[in-house]
């Protein structure tokens, strides 16, 4: 018989409902695993005590999503004692569903990073190899799910922060269409790019969690007021006639051979089931990183102005107001946050605005149009999630540009606002997970789930295999 941690979240829910499992038993099972295994990877910032809920299946929350009465730190010194005074909309929905919120997971400070090394607490390590990064910025959520310390979790994705750690940790990470999930109560990073999404071990749990969190919300002015389909109905094995595009720009120089091979194999597997594989072009892909970092940093520098040491968070006491701001922000922000605030402030400043910020907004249009054109001939796009498997701890932290370039296949999706999912598609010769990315048309999460689910049924082992430390 399977142990609790080997079950899908949806299986746990069913067993609880049928009285084959007790809610307390489920909680203590995962709590014991966290106490035993998490010291190795450090994926949690805080684990909450048991409290009664209707359904009892535990979910972990990235520490940039507000849960009323709980600490929310964004893994930043500037917020290290902050208590959320309201629930994010996704939390309100999760509570209404009756899930148990198990704890807050680690992340790069304010979601700035691709390795989870920019946390003010500690880096989260990769459960498959403790010398490797978990990815970022939702590294804590991805590592916790991969190590089976929690059945599923929420992350946030501004330029790949759900998908890249999911690929590094061998789990499913879904970024919905911009506007699908309310951003109310998510600490803002890049407001035109941010989306909350699920990190799970499989597509069934992914569809279940999407059903809970998606939907129009008056409290988010960019929330999409359009109908949300039942994503559970997309869990069907059928890819007949589905046109899958492979963008040539995503398979060029810089892509690891083993990753390339694994992703090409995904195409072949789906082709055998009746999908059509087509080569496509996204010609402005080479400008995506530059465009993304200007826009994301500009929005971040603006959003982070609120951390002034007056209304909340850290305050360094000074006799003069301006000096209080300057000292508080010097002490409160880590180096990557400062770098991004500087880059954003520079891009938005008089004399540089046209050359940087405005230019990036225009190239963003071209990147968006590349996708529109591609989607006139294909239904989904298949790419690697990251050019390499998980890299070493400390390997890129001193060279920010090389860190930024690791997001090369994920940022365009946020610039275009479209949905995408990373799912496990194999292992390297060193037993590190490899992730493939499926990109969909706006508001067509359904096709991504259908194709992903079909692939999962064909290649179950990639989804079910667990790291040694999780056993």
């Amino acid at each position: 018989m399977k142990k609790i941690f080997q079950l899908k979240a949806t299986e746990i829910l069913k067993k609880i409902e049928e009285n084959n499992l007790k809610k307390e038993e489920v909680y203590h099972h995962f709590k014991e695993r966290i106490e035993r295994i998490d010291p190795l990877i450090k994926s949690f910032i805080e684990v909450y005590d048991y409290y009664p809920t209707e359904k009892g299946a535990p979910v972990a929350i990235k520490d940039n999503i507000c849960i009323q009465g709980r600490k929310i730190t964004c893994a930043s010194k500037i917020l290290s004692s902050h208590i959320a005074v309201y629930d994010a909309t996704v939390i309100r929905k999760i509570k209404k569903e009756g899930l148990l919120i198990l704890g807050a997971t680690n992340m790069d400070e304010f979601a700035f990073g691709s390795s989870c090394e920019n946390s003010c607490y500690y880096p989260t390590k990769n459960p498959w190899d403790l010398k490797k990064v978990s990815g970022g910025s939702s590294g804590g959520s991805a590592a916790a799910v991969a190590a089976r310390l929690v059945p599923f979790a929420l992350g946030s994705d501004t330029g790949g922060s759900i998908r890249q750690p999911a690929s590094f940790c061998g789990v499913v990470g879904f970024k919905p269409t911009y506007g699908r999930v309310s951003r109310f109560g998510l600490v803002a990073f890049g407001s035109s790019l941010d989306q909350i999404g699920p990190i799970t071990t499989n597509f069934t749990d992914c569809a279940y969690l999407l059903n809970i969190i998606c939907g129009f919300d008056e409290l988010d002015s960019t929330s999409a007021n359009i109908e949300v389909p039942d994503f559970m109905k997309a869990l069907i094995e059928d890819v007949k006639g589905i046109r899958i595009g492979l963008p040539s720009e995503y398979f060029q120089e810089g892509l690891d051979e083993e990753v390339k091979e694994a992703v090409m194999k995904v195409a072949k597997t789906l082709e055998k089931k009746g999908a059509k594989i087509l080569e496509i072009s996204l010609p402005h892909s080479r400008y995506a990183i530059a465009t993304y970092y200007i826009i994301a940093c500009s929005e971040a520098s603006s959003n982070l102005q609120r951390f002034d040491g007056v209304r909340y968070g850290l305050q360094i006491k000074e006799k003069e107001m301006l000096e209080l701001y300057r000292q508080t922000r010097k002490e409160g922000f880590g180096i990557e946050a400062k770098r991004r605030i500087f880059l954003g402030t520079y891009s938005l400043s008089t004399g540089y605005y046209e050359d940087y910020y405005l230019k990036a907004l225009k190239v963003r249009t071209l990147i968006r149009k590349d996708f529109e054109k591609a989607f006139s001939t294909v239904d989904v796009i298949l790419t690697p999630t990251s050019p390499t498997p998980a890299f070493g701890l400390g390997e890129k932290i001193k060279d920010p540009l090389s860190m930024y370039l690791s997001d090369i296949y994920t940022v365009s999706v946020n610039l275009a606002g479209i949905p995408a999912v990373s799912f496990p598609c194999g292992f390297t010769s060193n037993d590190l997970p490899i992730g493939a990315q499926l990109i969909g048309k706006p508001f067509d999460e359904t096709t991504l789930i259908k194709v992903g689910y079909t692939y999962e049924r064909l290649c179950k082992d990639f989804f079910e295999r667990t790291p040694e430390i999780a056993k």
Partner: protein
Amino acid sequence: MITPQTVKYVAELARIKITEEEIEFLKEQLGKILEYINNLKEVDTDKVEPTRGVFFQENRLREDIPCKKDIFKEILKNAPQKEDNYFKVPKVIE
């Protein structure tokens, strides 16, 4: 080109105190990043409209009706310094 003066100027705009060492460090790193970013200059964007947001960008207005009273406590809960129903800051006028 990023000069130490540029770094100091941006630090002032961003209200972040920086040390002499950090000026050198940030000058070098921002210079490298901007050098990479400058490849955007080769893209012809003369007739391209900027994208400020992707979907549903219309302003959604609502009636201005107060919906909750007595939220001072909640708002002030995380304030580092407060007095009565106010945030407390150093004196800003002489």
